[in-house]
């Protein structure tokens, strides 16, 4: 890319209006007080289940665990056939072929983290090889991490070029770009990183790896939702959003759904445009769902340990 385009990129990112920190936190907190009950709650729970990227990203992941989790993705509540499947399974590249065996042809997507997840501190060719391996193994969604170090140092070109290269390596697979907002420091940086990722060709922007203490928060997701809204208005392309990490309860998930509805509207209220990166969230959603269908409180003893 030429020097003029790159200086345009810098001036574009720094020309974005600053985020009103107090305002965005107050708005997120205000929207979090909405109460969703009865039939609306039942719909919201099913929608949230359909939006879950059921994730296991541990060093201790075994093929057996990934197979079990994949089976759970297809039928989260074996006792209730009306319970919808989740959106996707999210695993490390080494586990992609295992999950693919279970998921192929089911409609449940298979996401793989790649590009030296979670730190992103590796040479570009290693990141690209990581990505190609995952796609070759059957992943149709790639969750890449940006180089936060380069971003924070102001080297937007490097981050931009990496995303472009990974997008190319993805082929037809969807690309989710993890901003790791907990390491970006300010809401202004979150907004800039969102735009940078979208300009470079991301299909989704994702908050976090779940491997640093500060993961997805409502205000950060609000800033990102505003970014995808403004981006569509300007560039005509719709981008998805995926908060990940720290979303554990149905109540949390409901807050995010309210946030989408009030910020970007119906267009994003679909698993194609919004995902929850989570593992323990699913069991809580299932317990709440069981509470609604049976009329009594559910307990964790009746659901799988993942």
């Amino acid at each position, binding site marked *: 890319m030429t020097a003029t385009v790159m200086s345009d990129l810098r001036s574009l990112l720094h020309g974005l209006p600053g985020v009103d920190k107090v305002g965005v936190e107050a708005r997120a907190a205000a929207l979090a007080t909405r109460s969703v009950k009865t039939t609306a709650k039942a719909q919201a729970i099913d929608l949230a289940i359909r939006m879950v990227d059921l994730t296991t990203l541990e060093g201790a992941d075994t093929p057996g665990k990934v197979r079990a989790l994949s089976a759970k993705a297809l039928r989260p509540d074996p006792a209730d056939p009306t319970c919808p499947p989740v959106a996707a399974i999210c695993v490390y590249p080494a586990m992609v072929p295992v999950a693919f065996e279970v998921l192929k042809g089911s409609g449940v997507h298979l996401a793989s983290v790649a590009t030296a997840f979670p730190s992103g501190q590796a040479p570009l060719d290693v990141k690209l090889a990581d990505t190609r391996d995952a796609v070759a193994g059957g992943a149709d969604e790639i969750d890449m991490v940006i180089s936060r170090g380069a971003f924070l140092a102001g080297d937007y070109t490097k981050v931009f070029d990496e995303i472009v290269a990974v997008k190319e390596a993805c082929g037809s697979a969807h690309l989710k770009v993890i901003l790791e907002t907990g390491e970006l420091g300010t809401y202004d940086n979150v907004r800039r990183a969102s735009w940078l990722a979208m300009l470079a060709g991301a299909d989704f922007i994702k908050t976090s790896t779940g491997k640093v203490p500060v993961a997805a928060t409502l205000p950060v997701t609000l800033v990102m939702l505003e970014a995808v809204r403004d981006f569509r208005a300007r560039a005509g392309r719709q981008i998805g959003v995926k908060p990940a990490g720290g979303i554990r309860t149905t109540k949390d998930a409901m807050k995010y759904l309210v946030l989408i509805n009030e910020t970007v509207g119906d267009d994003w209220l679909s698993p194609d445009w919004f995902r929850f990166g989570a593992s323990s969230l699913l069991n809580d959603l299932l317990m709440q769902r069981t509470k609604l269908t049976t009329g*009594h409180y559910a307990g964790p003893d009746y659901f799988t340990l993942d």
Partner: protein
Amino acid sequence: MPKSSAPRLSVRKTFKLYIGGAFPRSESGRTYLVDGDNVALASRKDARDAVVAARKAQPKWAGATAYNRGQVVYRIAEMVESRRAEFKALGTAGDEVNAAVDRLVWYAGWSDKIAQVAGNANPVAGPFFNLSSPEPTGVVGVIAPPTLLGLVSVVAPAVVTGNTVVVVTGGPQVAVTLAEVLATSDVPGGVVNILTGHAAEIAPWLASHDDVNGLDLTGVDDPTLAVELEQAAAGTLKRVRRAGRTDFTNDPGLAPMTAFLETKTVWHPKGF
């Protein structure tokens, strides 16, 4: 503070719930009047929150040594003793406070002895040690009688063996005063949770709750309600204790403790 000639305003107390070691109001915001006192009226969601608190506290409480649990229950007895005047002001007779303190001390002593009585070394036809030992059942819902002695007689046996409890009581002032005792007696938060309100409203939610393992119906006076609760509890195979109206001054025996114990049997090879 400067002295004022105006008459001092009285500080009125609201009797609140006891959940997870804290004294919250009811999430429903409701209160009711009992003998002129303002008392929080628990809702099903308070019961839900209390079960979560009890479940969270259970592994650590059950994991404490029996000796330690006994010390904590003894400490409750000490604190009841020192709050004698408060219970008296609520209409609890001195004899009853004595009996409650004695009952707590008695159960405290049982803490590290129940395993010897309820457990066993079983003779088996093979080269094994075969040992049965009592284990706490988990979270127990307790519908408690309204008096201090009644309350102590159902709560102490359940917790001393390592269970955690969610108590529903219609005798709120005494129960909340006992909660204040518990909060200052080294009882970890969440081990005993106290909900003041109507058993008919809250108990069915505890009885049908999938994450409650046992149910004590000693404080249920209405036989129809008791049967309904037993049926609801059967859905999750809860252990149910229905002692009925008893004279709490009598020797309780071991049944209140063993009702919420399960037996774990271990086969251990010998001769190697």
